[in-house]
């Protein structure tokens, strides 16, 4: 298929662009296969380059022959285009609609994008399971890297290499996989160096209504316990939801069959509820006519902050089991690809200082989200402005980022990256020129789509020194401790950087931030100067002077 077929009117002159907090621009609107471009053809005015895949929804309005298209983006921005001429406007609108909802992944921009920069360090090869395993090997020899999934047949959503207990053979894994939702048998998610406790993740056990059991599954997870130790199974669903799952062949671990494990149920909501929550929250944030009371009641009705609190609380619980109670943990929900990953990845942020560095965070996203099979393409197909019935869209990753931001706010000196980095990840998860978030699993992205050969990795771009600079938190001081965030509602804030980003001017806040950066940099400069002067003085002192001794 040619893009040209979809573009009915490639360009229109005299289009006026309205953007929040920016002056209006008049210029020529051009549609290409992947972009909507508005250029004023003047040197000093900014042009608009919008990826079609960033467009969440559009609305058309007409007043006389002047048409208006309201473009609602996945990054939550809303822009308005005034297009003279009804026909042009209709053509543009239908073209945008067609181009922004292309079904075929291989037509997506990342397959066409050629980087304007030299790839120094290829992000596709930065974080492999082998690398992660090397680190693990240096701490313990109780685990092995299994190739049981090398053809992605045992578990289509797992990577080809997974870390499992040393004493468990591949046969046992296959049998356990048959007993877990989506074949997601328990695998290692995190090893806590301090006390050797581990966090595992899996899909729900397929106990069904008649309480099926699987000896191999029991053997597998018991193999992760030290002698005489107990562990915790954190089921991210409420007991009621977990019970209901039995009717559909799912279920939860029966105490009788897992006597060394205690099960705890939490209440992280399923994806369609999260999507609804996002839609309501964004609606509330975009309504400029809210009174104080209406704003608070809409914020409450959206339930977004409740989800943040629930996810953070569950992650803290997992971290607490591991660090404070010295117990190993198995986390699962239903599929084990959503709430499970939120919990395991956040727990690592809390426990593991390395995850709070820029590289470490990339590795975490790579390990716990991309390779762990979070279905990004399905979840991020639409954002807050989708008006159709959600299929499988859900802001699962955005909620994770929000939780990270909450911890970052509470420990502003313990993260190497800043808020901007998190916002960038949010944007790229929904629409990007890079291939990193394409596809739904390692099997799909690595093998079927050949992403690593055909597209550029987001990390290749992010890790360039020029870009990296923007993501560095100037306050960062490595902090080797476990960081326990407060989950009191008074401590949780609305992530304004995302949700109010286009609704307020941040000029004064940005300037204040600049000033803070300046203070920090000036201090560093002075430290260096003092140190070099001290060295100079020491030098002078040792220099032999001919007349040193009177």
């Amino acid at each position, binding site marked *: 298929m040619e893009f040209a077929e979809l573009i009915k009117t490639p360009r229109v002159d005299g289009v006026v662009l309205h953007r929040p907090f920016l002056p209006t621009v008049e210029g020529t609107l051009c549609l290409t296969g992947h972009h909507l471009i508005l250029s004023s053809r003047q040197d000093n005015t900014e042009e608009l380059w919008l990826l079609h895949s960033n467009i969440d929804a559009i609305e058309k309005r007409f007043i006389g022959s002047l048409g208006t298209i309201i473009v609602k983006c996945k990054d939550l921005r809303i822009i308005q285009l005034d297009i003279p001429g009804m026909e042009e406007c209709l053509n543009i609108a239908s073209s945008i609609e067609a181009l922004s909802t292309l079904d075929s992944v291989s037509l997506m921009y990342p397959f066409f994008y050629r980087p304007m920069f030299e790839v120094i360090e290829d992000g596709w090869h930065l974080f492999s399971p082998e690398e992660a395993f090397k680190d693990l090997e240096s701490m313990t020899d109780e685990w092995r890297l299994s190739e049981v999934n090398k053809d992605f047949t045992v578990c289509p959503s797992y990577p080809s290499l997974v870390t499992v207990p040393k004493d468990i053979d591949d046969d046992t894994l296959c049998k356990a996989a048959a007993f877990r939702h989506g074949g997601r048998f328990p695998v290692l998610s995190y090893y806590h160096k301090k006390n050797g406790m581990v966090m595992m993740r899996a899909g729900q056990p397929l106990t069904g209504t008649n309480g099926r059991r699987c000896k191999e599954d029991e053997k597998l997870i018991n193999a992760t316990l030290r002698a005489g130790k107990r562990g915790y199974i954190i089921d991210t669903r409420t007991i009621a939801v977990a019970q209901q799952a039995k009717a559909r062949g799912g279920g939860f671990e029966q105490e009788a069959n897992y006597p060394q494990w205690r099960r705890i149920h939490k209440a992280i909501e399923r994806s369609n509820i999260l999507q609804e929550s996002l839609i309501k929250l964004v609606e509330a944030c975009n309504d400029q006519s809210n009174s104080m009371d209406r704003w608070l009641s809409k914020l409450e009705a959206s339930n977004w902050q409740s989800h943040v609190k629930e996810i953070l609380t569950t992650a803290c619980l997992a971290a607490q089991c591991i660090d404070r109670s010295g117990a190993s943990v198995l986390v699962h929900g239903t599929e084990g690809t959503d709430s499970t990953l939120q919990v395991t990845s956040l727990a690592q942020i809390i426990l593991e200082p390395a995850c709070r560095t820029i590289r470490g965070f990339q590795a975490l996203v790579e390990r716990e989200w991309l390779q762990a099979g979070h279905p990004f393409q399905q979840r991020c197909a639409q954002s807050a402005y989708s008006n159709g019935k959600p299929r499988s869209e859900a802001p699962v990753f955005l909620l994770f980022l929000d939780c990270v931001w909450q911890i970052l706010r509470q420990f502003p000196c313990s993260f190497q990256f800043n808020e901007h980095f998190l916002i960038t990840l949010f944007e790229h998860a929904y629409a990007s020129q890079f291939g990193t978030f394409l596809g739904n699993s390692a099997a799909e992205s690595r093998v079927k789509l050949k992403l690593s050969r055909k597209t550029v990795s987001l990390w290749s771009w992010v890790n360039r020194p020029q870009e990296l600079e923007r993501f560095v938190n100037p306050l960062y001081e490595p902090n080797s401790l476990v960081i326990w965030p407060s989950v009191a509602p008074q401590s949780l804030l609305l992530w304004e950087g995302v949700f109010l980003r286009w609704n307020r001017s941040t000029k004064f806040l940005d300037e204040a931030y600049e000033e*803070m950066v300046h203070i920090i940099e000036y201090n560093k400069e002075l*430290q260096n100067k003092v140190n070099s002067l001290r060295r100079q003085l020491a030098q002078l002192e040792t220099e032999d002077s001919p007349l040193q001794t009177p």
Partner: protein
Amino acid sequence: IEAIRNTVEQVKLLDRFSNKSTTGTLHLTATHLIFVESNILHHHIASVEKLSLTTSGCPLLIQCRNFRVVHFVVPRERDCHDVYSSLLRLLRPVSYDELYAFSYNPKQNEQQRDEGWQLIDLGAEFERMGVPCDQWQLTDVNRDYKVCETYPRDLYVPITASKPIIVGSSKFRSKGRFPVLTYFYQERKAAVCRCSQPLSGFSARCLEDEHMLQAISKANHNNRYVYVMDTRPKLNALANRAAGKGYENEDNYSNIRFQFVGIENIHVMRSSLQKLLEVVGTRSLSVMDYLVGLENSGWLRHIKAIVDAAIFLTKAVTVEGASVLVHCSDGWDRTAQVCSLGALLMDPYYRTIKGFMVLIEKDWISFGHKFADRCDQLDGDPKEVSPIFTQFLECVWQLTEQFPQAFQFSEWFLIQIHEHIHSCQFGNFLGNSQRQREELQLKERTYSLWDHLLSEQQLYLNPVYSPSFAETHPVLEPSTQPWNFKFWRNMYHQFDRSMHPRQSILKNTVMLKENSKELESTVRELQAVIYLCKTYLLLSWSYILSLYTLPVHSVHPGKAQEDTPVGSGEERTVEGSSATENGYGEIKGSFGSKSEPAIVSLEFGVARMTC
């Protein structure tokens, strides 16, 4: 005092939100309750409650006016009862003489004390605004508090307002609070005036009062219209009419534009705060209950209403160049809030530490905000208590959040001032009016808070304050979108450590800035020493050293000492276990180790060198 039970051992302090507890000895002194490292001033205690006996002892719940809630468990009931009844006796002073300010002695001599009181000079403040001028003059009509006993002695009125007009107008206004100048916007020659409600009832008029407003109108050549802002909801103003009070009838006053603003009264505000505190004091609070509670309390709605009113005032003055007359019922609560907040938006001076003190001294203290009643300083009518001034401080905080570079002070300054409106440790906020303060001879018998705060102003500086912000943004134009109004956690949970970020950007930035200052002088000194070394290379090294009491270790060969970056050591308060209680309290302390390579004054060294 001898009947006071003063020491109880093995008392347990329970944390409000977690299951943590501390055990220690509880002491009662004449002024403080002391437990482990925390002191509670008796004046801060709003209520003491004995809860029913538990297995571990007798619980005692103390609620403080600075939003601290302390939950003790005393092992023996008898001891608990003793403490309880002692506290009851101590915390309800009936006369001013019992207040802490009259026994507090910061070891200053009389001259220092007087200087402290002279720091703020309201006459000079009006001069700074450009008053007296050709249109506004100082009147001595209230020299002896004869016309209005809740106003200060010195008042500024339009030059065309004669004494009979003033006196006539004052008789037509509640409590005699006639229209007077509180802020003069020099650029447009527009005035902000304040007064109380007119005694208009359903139809009463007063020609002098009408003349008074006319005089205000005439004093402004730019704009003849005078906005009259009645800061009450219209319904309240109407109800007042039945009591022979009310609001201005536009038909009787020429050139006025009358406007209701809709800020609720002291009773609504009191119960609003109470509701808010109940909600946020709940253990294991859910997000839903929190947000519903926040909404139902109405607190942020009230805060927004005050800011909205101040913005209205500011626009009328700065954009239209019109004079504005602000009143409510008595003109000492809502009027004070709106006038002071408006002035803060219009005039960058009030956003400095000193200017903010002046503003409070002018609009709140001198114009008779009833601090004694509102803050419950003496055992008085509980219906008079209301967090009006707290709201003002919160409004300022909300503005600092929107304009982080506009204010010289940080929120710790606001919180510290709030601490002292209740502490009764300094004389400034005692009593209800200037006249009463004079009678109490506060300037002779107590100390000024402003002197104290200025002496430790380092603690309250906003590290990102930019003086040039005032030049580019003399008038602040805040956004009033509801999301800009946030719950002030650092105020209402200031004693609940577990609620706060475990690392503070503010504290860190302040520390770095302080550290940079020290480093700057270290650099200068090192450069000078190096220069001298090079110049006097002929002299022996040890001789040079002997001229400067340079710590030898810092210049010892091969031991060039690297300064470690600030924050790598002290800031490890991460697990919430040792977060400092007040944040600002430890800035200095945690710095000690860094300031070590102090090098003795070089000027001195140079002097010796040359002679």
